[in-house]
């Protein structure tokens, strides 16, 4: 445990959490409250007395809706019984997936900059994380040839996470097919975290398991947190081949038993209608454009993110490291951004700015950042 880096800049985060009238672009969750129909369905379920355990697999009704939904959107069919497991957030599903497939010493390839849990969870599961750097010159895409360079006899799996937190990068069908070819050739497994899939603003999100031959080799992870503004409910799912899902289920059964029934009842309602979700997605898209253009205007070079709700501008021209930039910006102008280095060494020189905040806050934050940059760019 001692070797696992506790978040190195916790101190900075503590200041950020406490500072009053700071504008936080450091948020990693929607600013919307869960749509009322979902909350109302949950309240109703409590009134009706749905307070028990559910099947370890999760409510069958929910698994059936998910199966329909995935088929409708991606043309890949998962059997509700045996190929879908309801979990306590994607976080749990991710941990289960690694523990189910990784043998001691197995290597797991992940692309950086990436979400902070992937590396430590791999280590917790007894695996060895192997990082592939992605850069702005490739629009932060994982390139098949770069992936292939890292493959050894010990490689067990690849973690794919697009649309990406923190970069907002997405992969198109062609990019994914090239990765699938490599995966196929080396007979690897893929853990595909598609939690931001619904938040794709240009082109369509392609589910990795929908690619030719990939269903058997993919553990698809998704959930309700981002698309339906349900972060605090802790509900997600894993879908994959029976053998792996069964193995994940065994761990889940002993450590979690089941996902809270209230969250599952709410999720059933969430899948009934996408109107509210679509409304939120169009609002994110407006903010995305507002922020990207705004960042460019105040002098930061910013690659165009096409998914999630993050922008990942470069701060190299200020001569500051990303951590220094974030610290000074917080102290001088009270704007919270996350240093890119938190998401892997190759994130150095960038900061993550979330646009899951109101248009008003975006404008105010940009104004403050503009003032801050005037001192460094002149």
């Amino acid at each position, binding site marked *: 445990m001692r070797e696992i880096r506790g*978040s190195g800049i916790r101190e900075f*985060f503590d200041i*950020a*959490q406490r*500072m009053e009238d*700071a504008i*936080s672009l*450091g*948020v*990693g*969750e929607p*600013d919307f*409250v869960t749509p009322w129909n979902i909350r109302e369905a949950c309240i109703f379920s409590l009134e009706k007395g749905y307070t028990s355990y559910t099947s370890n697999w999760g409510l069958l009704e929910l698994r059936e809706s998910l199966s329909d939904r995935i088929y409708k959107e991606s043309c890949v069919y998962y059997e509700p019984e045996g190929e879908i497991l309801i979990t306590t957030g994607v976080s749990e599903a991710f941990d289960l997936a690694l523990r189910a497939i990784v043998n001691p010493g197995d290597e797991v390839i992940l692309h950086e900059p990436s*979400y*902070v849990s992937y590396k430590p969870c791999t280590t917790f599961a007894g695996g060895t994380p192997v990082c592939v750097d992605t850069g702005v010159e490739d629009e932060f895409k994982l390139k098949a040839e770069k992936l292939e360079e890292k493959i050894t006899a010990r490689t067990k799996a690849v973690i794919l996470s697009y649309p990406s*937190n923190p970069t907002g990068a997405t992969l198109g069908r062609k990019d994914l097919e090239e990765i699938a070819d490599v995966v196929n050739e080396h007979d690897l497994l893929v853990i595909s975290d598609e939690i931001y899939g619904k938040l794709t603003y240009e082109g369509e999100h392609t589910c990795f398991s929908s690619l030719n031959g990939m269903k058997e080799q993919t553990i698809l992870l998704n959930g309700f947190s981002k698309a339906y503004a349900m972060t*605090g409910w802790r509900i997600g799912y894993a879908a994959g081949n029976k053998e792996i899902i069964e193995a994940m289920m065994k761990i889940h059964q002993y450590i979690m038993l089941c996902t809270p029934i209230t969250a599952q009842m709410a999720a059933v309602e969430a899948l009934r209608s996408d109107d509210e979700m679509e409304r939120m997605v*169009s609002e994110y*898209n*407006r*903010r995305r*454009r*507002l922020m990207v*253009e*705004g960042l460019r205007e105040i002098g930061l070079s910013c690659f165009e993110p096409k998914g999630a709700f993050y922008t990942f501008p470069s701060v190299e021209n200020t001569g500051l490291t990303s951590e220094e930039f974030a610290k000074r910006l917080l102290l001088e102008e009270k704007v*919270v951004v*996350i240093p890119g280095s*938190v*998401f892997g060494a190759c994130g150095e020189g960038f900061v993550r700015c979330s646009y899951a905040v109101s*248009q008003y806050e975006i*404008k105010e934050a940009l104004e403050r950042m503009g003032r801050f940059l005037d001192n460094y760019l002149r």
Partner: protein
Amino acid sequence: MKEEKQKGEILKILEENARTSDKEIARMVGLEEDEVKGIISELESGGVIRKYKAVINPEKAGIDAVQALIDVRVSPERNTGYDSVADRISRFPEVKSVRLVSGEYDLLIVVEGNTMKEVAYFVAEKIAPLEQVRNTVTHFLLKTYKENGEIYEEEEKGERLAVTL
């Protein structure tokens, strides 16, 4: 097609916040500022955008105006049906809205005045005596919870953490 979508998007933005600047709108929909200006003035002159207003919470603004919903049963006329009487009622400045509705009554109108008495007298003196009006029922508004899609008393929102990775 694309242009229709952009128009729709601009309308949505303005409906939410009519004070959004042309520059910001241009960014959000991916157009040049001039193009946005052009589209908006087209929408204005075509009557799609009727006007820009603020949504005011009268209670907070300290405005004591009294509003009432009035159900009005009328006898339709030959040729014009309900239109002529509706038009006649619409012209009073005290009348804020006039709608033809189905059900027991025909017109549902909103009347505003400074006091309850003023509203009651207005109905009694100007609406009820109209030749086509058969009877009226007055409902005074006591409290507004939601209007035009806006909830007046915002619900409590949980505090988000300033930093989550």
